[in-house]
Structure formats: structure tokens, C-alpha cells
């Protein structure tokens, strides 16, 4: 019996419609079965996709295809697998992997530790932003790889300079997304917190950070990828040890199968580390995980 015209007039487009709730409730019962089916098809399509890729690779190398791109010297999948069996038993190969993973952990970890608080501060405080951001913005377009010579001069050891390059790769995506996350916060949350008695520090910890987390994790997902790109490049140029160094060395020593093995290892490690970041995100943002699930 209320004036519905007034009601709809005040409903902004950003307000969640209460009407969607009924459809949500209706679909809730079939969610577990849906999920099992989705998982099954995901596995099938992944196997199919990888199988198809290996098949094309196998055929191209078996017949030594030359269609402008030349497969004459490219190792077959079998040869790469044999190389893997040989390398996995050699301690040096394991050392390469351990070194790369450690550099990623340090470089990426430091990037999170520095970029998140800095991004929160830049996003929240206008004056701090005006002071700090222009300098960061000027340095941002310089690719991490271009920092290699400078980094070698800057840092005392080769190891720290490689970690620094890795750090740079992850730093900017995380920073930019954190700033974006802070500026995108709905003002009503900030107001609500302040009327509930939150001090500025408490507000930063309990509202600004959690509200920006989805953006921060987007930045981290991009950042971990760029960190690998930067790391491999740095290892190829200046490294001793590391999977990038291994790949480059294989080329220098004309070990074709090892080149592909190095690439495959990089791909797998990159995939695993992105997966860890994604899982960490789900763990830290339980409320958001639910929201994403409901959207299907």
C-alpha cells in the first residue's frame, strides 16, 4: 500500500535488487551436483586440450614440418620426457628449481609487503599520493628487464639483484591494483565504520584493507606472472643457477630437449604459483568466495 513510484525512483542502479533472492533460493539445492558436473567437464576439457597440443607437437616434430616455422631441430615430446627423467636425477637441476622458487618467494613476498601498505596509503591520503605517486608513475613504464644492468650496479650480490628484478615485476601490478581497490571502496562502508566509532588506524585495518582485498589479489595474480617473466629474463642475462639460466645454458650447449624441458618447468612452476595465490585469496576472503559461487 506504499507509494511504489517514489520507491522505484530512489532505487539506484547499484543497489542489489531484492527480487533476485527468490531465484537464488531456488537454485541453491542443485549447487553441489552442478559443481561435480562442472569439475568433471573441466577435467575432461583440460585433458583434451593438453592432449591435442601434445599431438600437434608430436606430429610436427615426427615429420619435421617446415612451413616457414621449422620443426627440424625441435625435440619430440618423448625426447623431452627422456631429458626430464635424466635431469630429475641430477642434483644441479633440482638446485636450479630451488633457486628460482626462492627468488620468486623473496621477490614476490617483498613486493606484497611493500606495495600493499604503500598502495593503501596512496589510495587513502590525497597529499601522500600527490607527493609519491608522480615519481612511481614515471618509473612504472620501465620494464623490469631494463633494470638488469642498473640492478647489478645497485645491489651488492648477483643474487640480490635478481631478487630485486623479480620484486619490480610484481611490485607495480600489486601497487596499482591496491590503489584502485582503495579508491573504489563504497563510501557507505567508511561512513558506517566511522559512526560505529572506528579510529583511522582501525578503519584502515578493518575496512580499507578488506574492502580492497579483491583488487589486491587481482594485482597479486598479475604480479606473480610478471615476477616470473622478470625472473627468467634476469636469470638468462646475469644468473648463476635458476631455471631461466638452465634453459639458456641448454641452448648454448645445444641440448635441444633441455630447452623444452626448461620451458615446461617454468610453465608448471608459474601455474603452481598462480594457483597458490588464488587459493590464498579464497582463504582470506571467505565472504567473497561465497559471492562468486552464487553468481553462477
Amino acid at each position, binding site marked *: 500500500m506504499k507509494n511504489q*513510484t517514489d520507491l522505484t525512483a530512489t532505487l539506484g542502479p547499484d543497489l542489489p535488487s531484492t527480487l533476485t533472492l527468490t531465484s537464488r533460493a531456488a537454485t541453491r539445492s542443485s549447487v553441489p551436483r552442478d559443481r561435480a558436473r562442472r569439475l568433471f567437464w573441466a577435467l575432461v576439457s583440460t585433458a583434451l586440450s593438453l592432449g591435442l597440443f601434445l599431438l600437434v607437437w608430436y606430429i610436427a616434430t615426427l615429420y619435421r614440418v617446415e612451413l616457414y616455422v621449422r620443426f627440424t631441430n625441435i625435440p619430440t615430446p618423448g625426447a623431452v620426457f627422456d631429458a626430464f627423467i635424466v635431469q630429475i636425477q641430477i642434483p644441479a637441476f633440482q638446485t636450479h628449481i630451488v633457486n628460482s622458487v626462492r627468488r620468486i618467494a623473496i621477490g614476490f613476498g617483498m613486493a606484497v609487503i611493500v606495495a600493499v601498505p604503500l598502495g593503501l596509503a596512496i589510495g587513502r591520503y590525497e597529499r601522500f599520493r600527490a607527493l609519491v605517486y608522480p615519481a612511481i608513475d614515471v618509473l612504472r613504464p620501465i620494464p623490469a628487464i631494463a633494470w638488469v644492468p642498473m640492478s647489478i650496479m645497485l645491489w651488492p650480490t648477483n643474487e640480490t639483484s635478481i631478487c630485486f628484478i623479480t620484486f619490480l615485476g610484481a611490485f607495480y601490478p600489486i601497487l596499482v591494483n591496491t590503489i584502485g581497490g582503495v579508491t573504489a571502496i563504497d563510501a557507505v562502508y567508511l561512513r558506517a565504520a566511522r559512526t560505529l566509532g572506528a579510529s583511522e588506524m582501525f578503519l584502515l585495518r578493518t575496512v580499507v584493507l578488506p574492502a580492497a582485498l579483491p583488487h589486491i589479489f587481482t594485482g597479486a595474480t598479475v604480479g606473480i606472472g610478471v615476477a616470473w617473466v622478470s625472473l627468467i629474463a634476469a636469470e638468462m642475462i646475469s644468473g648463476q643457477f635458476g631455471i631461466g639460466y638452465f634453459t639458456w645454458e641448454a641452448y648454448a650447449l645445444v641440448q635441444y630437449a633441455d630447452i623444452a624441458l626448461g620451458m615446461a618447468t617454468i610453465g608448471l612452476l608459474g601455474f603452481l604459483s598462480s594457483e597458490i595465490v588464488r587459493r590464498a585469496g579464497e582463504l582470506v576472503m571467505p565472504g567473497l568466495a561465497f559471492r562468486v559461487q552464487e553468481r553462477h
Partner: protein
Amino acid sequence: MNTAATLEMNNATVVFGSGATRHTVLDRVSLLVRPGEFVSLIGPSGCGKSTVLNVFAGFVRCVAGTATLDSRAITRPGPDRSVVFQQYSLFPWLNVQRNVEYGLRALGVSRRVRAAKALRLLEHAGLAQYADRYPDQLSGGMKQRVGIIRAFATDPRVLLMDEPFSALDAQTRSTMQQLLTNIWEEHRISVLFVTHDVEEAVFLSDRVFVMSAAPGRVLRELSVALPRPRDADLVDTAAFLEHVHEIRVLVRREGLVGIGESPAGATHGEDLPEELELEQVLRALLRREGLVGIGESPAGTTHGEDLPEELERVL
């Protein structure tokens, strides 16, 4: 439990923007909420009624005049003045219980004490089984119920409510109004309630302030002399309808005056009076036909565009 406070605004003027966009949002607004009183503020969209609330909340400063809580000037937001917002403002990253606990956490209350209090409040509202849910798993009405509970958790001296039910459907709305009036009768806290719904204002309030737009001014102050406790039957009584009619006429007259004078008048002036009139005709018809109190009637649940059709059918 803190005692209810006096909320007072004296000749408050608020100006937004600067240079060419500078305009007066509130023009010497004075109003008073006595301790334990439920006061509504009603007026057309853009009349500055939310600004009045924001001044009391401490979000907006007035350039002239004063806004005080128990004679102390309001300068910033604080837990003595809880706010329930029009938009859903529950933190989506916290579950219901942690949302209710938030204010106590900000005050440094220990985990055990605040959990006990939050659960007690939720239980009292019949929401205990939703304590672990996240806001996105709740309906709009439930979100606002939790929002009200969260506002009560810090034992505020004043409750400021900014069109808290305007995003809800008609059915949920009247349920929430009943709920609010029950809670209020229990706590007798001072409430300033902003709305554009005349019936809502009359149903809930001891007094109603009617505002005009551009610049926002208090047009009139009316006492609602209706008995308490109040329930849904009240809306069918002649006394209730008289109050509603009185305010409606005032608002309509104001709506006609507002045409072409302000952005609010330009958007509303064309269709608002018409809608109001239409609704009144429909209401009169329904009353005469003895259809009063049909909560699920199409008039209440469908949109304004369908009204003429409905009217034809009734006729």
C-alpha cells in the same frame, strides 16, 4: 544502557560546492528531537533531509548555525550517534555476528564480551541462526534488520535513520516498520528518521517535520497524536488517515510550488502530484469498496505505471 539524548539543530545552513556550482542545501533549519522521542523528517527528493541527518551524524559541517547533542557541538562521527543507511552498509567481508560486533570491537571490548552481546541481540531479533551467514546470503529486509541491530550494539544515545526501508518491497517494508516501532518502544532511544513515505512517518513518529526543497527549509512541524504501542491495524483508523492526509496535502502543495524552481521540482513536479492524486482516488475507492488493508493488493505491489490500468479495473 546510556540515557537518550537531545538532538538539536538551530538555524543550520549548509552550502555545497563553490563558485558557479555553489548552492545552499539547508537554509536556517531548526529542529529538535527530545530525549526518547521518535521524530521523522519528510520532504521531496533533494530537499536536503538526508543532509540534516548527515550534519547530526558528523559527516557534514554547517557554515552557520549549530547542531548539538545534549548542547555539545557535533564535529565528527561517533558511536553515540548510530546511523542506519539507505544502502545496505553491512561489511560484506564479515559475517552477521562480526558485523554486529564491529562497533564494540572499535571500542576495544574483549572478544568474549562482544560475541556474547552480539549473539544476545541477534537472538532477541530472531536472527541467531544467521550469525554465521555473510551479508550476500541475506535478503534485503534481513540486511537492514542486522543493520539496525548493529546500530544498537554500541548502546547509542541517538539513532539516525536515512530512508532505511526505501530499498525494500512494500511487504517487507511494513514488517520492518512494525519491527522498528517494537524495538523503539523497548529502548525509548531518541530517533531521527528520514523518509519520503508519509505513512511510514506517521506510523512511526511522535512528531513529523515537513521540509521544502531548494533550499531545504523546515516547512512545518506536526505532532502525531496517535496511541502507542502501535500495530498494523493503526493504518486503517480514521485518525491515522487524517494525519496522512494533512501531510500529503502539504507535500502536494509544496510539490506544485516547486515546479521549475529546482532540479528536484523539475523531475518530480510533473508526475508527483498526479501520482499522489491517483493514489488517493484509488485509495478512496478501495476504502469505499471495503478493500481496506489488503496488503497484497496490486496497487501496493506493482509499479506506478500500472496504476491507471488497475484503476480502470476497479472502476
